């Protein structure tokens, strides 16, 4: 009698793989538009050609640039003008502390942001100056000298005070770049920062009310409340997150989410932090997985050897 088992196995495996390919890789490639990554090159933005002078930049940021009217720079002793909730109620969102902006954001992006915020952020569909829709961040129109040079100086200043790229942790990158609009409940992060431990429920609820007030202002500004990102690493895939962070419009045309302008390194760290929140045990899964696979192969080999021994008598 001919042994048909290899043929049967081939048929079963072939149909299984065909079905898998159709419902998984193929179906998902049809359902989701593929967006190529540009590797955070921001090719639409003009490069910063001038070499900046940080000292002059500091003078501009603190003085003629009027940045500190809205932004805190705690590293250089400039505190925020108002608390986060009032700031959100005035501007829509709490303007960021610029202490580490130089490490998180791309230099080209920062330069463009200073000159033309709506363009840098890719929110011109929301803020069209011609229609009187002004972006809450006032553009810098120059302090009288060479404007390109002045902008380069300011960027150089921001880079000079920021932490070095290798000191920027995934958590910091996330909080800087995403954390004023997005909460991350599983990491205890609210738009106001990490929620402290309160002994009394009343204090905890008071904090929650502050968060709700901030969120109310934010929702009014953005059209809807930006989602909590705790599980976004699982609900979206890594490629989607990366290209979305690079340019939200590419995946979701018309979205109110601005381009964040983060560097490739910061984007990578943001995604790592999202993985820490949504796929916390991935390292354990890898290592346990390897051990189990080794064991189960040994199990299968011993099962095979036993079968061979038992069946020796049968034919």
């Amino acid at each position: 009698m001919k042994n048909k088992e290899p043929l049967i196995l081939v048929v079963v495996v072939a149909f299984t793989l065909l079905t898998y390919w159709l419902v998984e890789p193929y179906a998902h490639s049809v359902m989701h538009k593929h967006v190529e990554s540009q590797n955070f090159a921001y090719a639409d933005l003009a490069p910063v050609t001038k070499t900046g002078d940080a000292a002059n930049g500091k003078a501009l940021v603190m003085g003629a640039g009027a940045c500190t009217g809205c932004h805190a720079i705690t590293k250089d002793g400039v505190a925020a003008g108002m608390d986060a909730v009032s700031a959100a109620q005035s501007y829509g969102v709490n303007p960021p502390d610029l202490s580490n902006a130089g490490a998180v954001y791309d230099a080209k992006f920062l330069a463009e942001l200073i000159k033309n915020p709506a363009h840098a952020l890719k929110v011109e569909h929301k803020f069209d100056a011609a229609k009187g829709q002004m972006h809450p961040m006032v553009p810098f129109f120059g302090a009288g000298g060479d404007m390109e040079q002045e902008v380069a100086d300011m960027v150089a200043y921001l880079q000079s005070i920021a932490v070095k790229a290798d000191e920027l942790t995934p958590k910091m990158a996330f909080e800087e770049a995403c954390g004023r609009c997005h909460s991350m409940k599983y990491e205890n992060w609210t738009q106001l920062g990490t929620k402290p431990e309160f002994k009394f429920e009343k204090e905890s609820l008071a904090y929650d009310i502050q968060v709700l007030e901030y969120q109310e202002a934010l929702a009014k500004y953005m059209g809807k409340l930006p989602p909590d990102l705790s599980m976004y690493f699982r609900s979206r895939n890594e490629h989607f997150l990366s290209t979305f962070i690079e340019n939200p419009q590419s995946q979701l045309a018309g979205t109110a989410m601005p381009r964040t302008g983060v560097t490739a390194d910061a984007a990578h760290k943001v995604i790592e932090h999202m993985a820490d929140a949504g796929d916390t045990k991935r390292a354990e899964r890898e290592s346990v997985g390897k051990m189990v696979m080794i064991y189960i192969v040994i199990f299968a080999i011993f099962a095979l050897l036993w079968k061979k021994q038992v069946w020796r008598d049968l034919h």
Partner: protein
Amino acid sequence: MAHFTKATSVKDWLNQRLAVEKVEKVMASEYWIPKNINFLWAMGMILAITFALLLVSGIFLLMYYQPDVKDAFYSVNYTIMRDVDFGWLWRNIHGVAASVVFLIIYIHMFTGIYYGSYKKGREMIWISGMLLFVTFSAEAFSGYMLPWGQMSYWAGMVITNIFSLGGLHFDGLVEWIRGDYVPAQAFLTRFFMLHILLLPLAILGLIGLHFAALRIPHVNNQDGEEIDFEAESKKYLAGDKVGSKVMRFGNDFLSKDLMVVGIYLVFFFYLVFFNYGFALDPVNFDPADGLKTPAHIYPEWYFLWSYEILRPFSVNIGLMAFGFAQVIFMLLPWLDRSPNAVPASRRGAFKFWYWLLLIDMIVLTAMGKLPPEGVFSTIGLVAALGFIILWIALPFITMNEKKV
């Protein structure tokens, strides 16, 4: 009352009270299995093992899961996935096993169809098997509700709406099933109950029936040969193991069962650790939102073929087609009019019917997942019609089949 003597050993003590030796004979060493079978006959054992994996992993998930619309998502994605030691492992095993169990069920079913194992006294095996398929489907669906993500909610919405039966407008029935106007707390708690108690009880009972149905007609074999189990087993017991056409279940066939299980588990655990995405849909990692339907909504892969039979038609015809697809497999032993219980390859036109049905169901599965637009809609419609036509044609194809 039976007469008991002083036991000579623990085994003897148990024997007098529980007849363990007799049980062992009936269940294993003198439960005779034909030798002429291939690894497809091990699917039953694989299903038993997979069910055991579902049960064990389910027990540990149950220890931390909270059936509350406010806490369910958190208890799954935070408590179980982050806080509980090895919680992620139980969830991955549970999710992957729930998906893979259907792959094996389909292989098991199509093996039965191919070898004609639903005929000549094996009808009850087929029927109890199909009942198991239905209860496993209900079990899978109710379990899918529990993480209370977007897919849970919207699958719950859509599937329960089927019970309004289209033009009949049984809206009261839908609300009765849900216990609310929409899937909400009452819905979640009752599906939780179904998932962890009522349906598993039904499944255990049906597994018992399925095994019992196998005792009298015995397991079929690769050639549909009628074996005299009485004579062949005597031959085996007399020492002619090689010449006998049968073997013991334990340990002869069991050793092969476990060998196949071993190979299967390599595949299974690879999926659990390294490729689980197909069984844990990304969309279900967004918490349920009753005011926003996901852009793409589709059932798990094993429901796609019947979903696609529903989809291309207008609501009433679609529901009739769907109902047809749900019951038609059950009737297979009577729709197949041929007396031949042999492999499909030796049955003329039935051979083509078999492969066409298999391919048609794979096409339906693929179209069920793809967005219902353009050419996919057309292919889906053709495949759905093809499914219905194949089953209507079955009695006519098999009626005139030559006796082999």
